[in-house]
């Protein structure tokens, strides 16, 4: 996975490169905007991390120029601005995602993975989480090699939960995926019934569907017991 890291702060760039390499990225670092732009336009990258406050050419300009040539390249912007800054609104439109400094590395990694998933959905590939293998294309799901039967609504529910793992899936989102009709069938009690069924089918998958009071559901991997 080739990644370009455009960050002018040497200490941060150094640590980030090492951390990114540790989790399997092939990292190339650019110390300023001009180098970043040159590299992004000349070479192939799967993803880029752009600092906004780059010398020579600022991050937003690099972003705009690169997106004109390579609109599909996922870009995560690093910024010292925060959510209250009106400039972030503009950023929101241009970048795929942004992260405010300072950040926790696991957060950065999760965002990068999410961007890559979004940029290159793997319909043919099997989606694995815990012991669950979820094959979207083939419309097959199995736990530890054992196939499980899912009704269309159960399938859509699990698909939604997998797509937003570790995030809250609201009841509205579930109802919407079922056809957006606010009839009796997609009422909250009905959603609960389906969640209950999917939960039972995931019993030995190492995954659990957590109920978030008043909001919806969240799919998380069960923490493995300390012995293993």
């Amino acid at each position: 996975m080739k990644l370009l890291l455009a960050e002018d702060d040497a200490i941060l760039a150094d640590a980030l490169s090492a951390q990114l390499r540790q989790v399997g990225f092939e990292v190339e670092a650019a110390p300023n905007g001009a180098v970043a732009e040159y590299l992004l336009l000349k070479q192939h990258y799967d993803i880029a991390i752009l600092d906004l406050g780059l010398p020579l050419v600022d991050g937003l300009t690099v972003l705009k120029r690169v997106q004109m040539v390579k609109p599909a390249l996922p870009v995560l912007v690093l910024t010292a601005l925060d959510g209250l800054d009106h400039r972030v609104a503009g950023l929101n439109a241009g970048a795929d995602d942004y992260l405010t400094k300072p950040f926790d590395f696991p957060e950065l990694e999760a965002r990068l993975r999410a961007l890559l998933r979004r940029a290159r959905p793997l319909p043919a590939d099997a989606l694995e989480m815990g012991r669950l293998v979820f094959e979207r294309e083939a419309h097959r799901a199995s736990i530890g090699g054992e196939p499980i039967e899912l009704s269309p609504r159960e399938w859509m529910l699990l698909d939604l939960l997998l797509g937003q793992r570790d995030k809250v899936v609201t009841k509205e989102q579930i109802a919407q995926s079922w056809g957006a009709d606010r009839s009796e069938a997609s009422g909250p009690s009905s959603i609960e019934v389906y969640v209950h069924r999917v939960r039972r089918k995931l019993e030995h998958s190492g995954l659990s569907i957590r109920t978030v009071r008043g909001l919806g559901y969240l799919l998380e991997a069960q923490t493995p017991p300390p012995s293993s």
Partner: protein
Amino acid sequence: MNLHIARQSLLGALHPFTRIRSLHRQLLLWLLLPQLVLWLAAAAVSYATAARYANKAIDASLSQAARSLARQVKPIGNGLFIDFPRAAQDIIEADRDEGVFYMVSTPPGKYILGNRKLDDPPLPKDPPLGTPHLYNSTVEKMPVRVAALYLAYGDDAANKQTLLVQIARGRTQRDELASEILRDTALPLSGLILLMSMIVWAGIRAGLAPLARLRAAVEEREPHDLAPLQIEAAPAELRSLVGALNGLLTAVQGNVATQRRFISDAAHQLRTPLAGLKSQTELALAENADPALRARLERVHESATRSAHLVAQLLTLARAEPESAAALGRSRFDLRKLAHDLSAEMVPRALKAGVDLGIDESAEEASPGELFVEGNALLVREALANVIDNAIRYSGSGHEVTVRTRPDGGRVVVEVDDTGPGIPGDLHERAFERFFRVSPSGSGCGLGLAIVKEIVERHAGSVTLESLSPHGLRIRMELPLAQR
């Protein structure tokens, strides 16, 4: 607000020592005092004039009477023929009440006729003959006006004799006349003075009204409001004062803005090195197996994380302050939806901390629908994020945090309940102070609730703490419901 109170108490403290004069009273005094003097002078002059004219009239009639009486006395040779008919006597003595007295004598002191003994006139030795002389005197302790007329009789120069005719009349009538004239002049004059005083009073009030408006405008100011004062229709003198005040306000505003910009810039500049510090520490932790070193690195990482949090909070606080907040703009938004989205976003963090974060559904079923408020959505979001973050941070693993939104009259109430240890009641007020921390442990920096208070009050709302039983804390934010 504090500034206002301080100013008030300062005035109060000064009061016993330096008498604070009201400009209104001063002007009134100095405008009415001359009027009073004028009134007194006018009364005195009119009394004097009245008395003079009354005297003149009476003197004329006395002189007339003296001449008439003198005509009745005709000299014959060296003697006198007095033709004083009863009728004439009656006329002179007609009004006894008025007290008319007369006497004819030949000086020195030889009484010829008359109804009373009158004193000799206070005259020089050789008085002018033929002209009545007028003077004040008393008859039986009664003040009288007297006309005295000296006449000469006798043929030969050697045997020349002098005749004195005196007529006196009581001065009561004259005094009455004078006071009547005085009354007739002074009464309308007093009315006029009263009317003028009222006009002056109203004039002063109208004249000082811009000053009162200026005072009100300054008093009503919030201490952070440094916008120029606007006094409509101010007179030139006040306009220059307002101009000077506005100059000062602009200068202060400039200073405040510079300072705030510095804080904001500094916070921005701190973020990148902190990110570097965190990343390097994380890397060192991942690469190092020595437990003692790891323990040290953990502390460094924790410290860097706390510094990062503090920087973020300082920046938010700088943003929440009015000058910056004004630049963020206002809109109308659904606070309930915001609470939902934010809670959903914060669930992963809560789960990591072992906290069960959720929404109180029963409150929403009791009052379904949107709850619109007006203001800056980013700031309100930041406030609510701080409240929820606080609840997650301080309740601790195994506890519940519940977010509730409901309408209450004209307000939207957002309550965040936790089942954690809570805050003792006597610290509820202080919990909103900047850098006040209820417990010295923990990863907070003591700015969270201060930020919440700042933002909520900026939106004409309020925030309070409440202890829950058996344990736990409720943070209640109230914001005005937006008009339809």
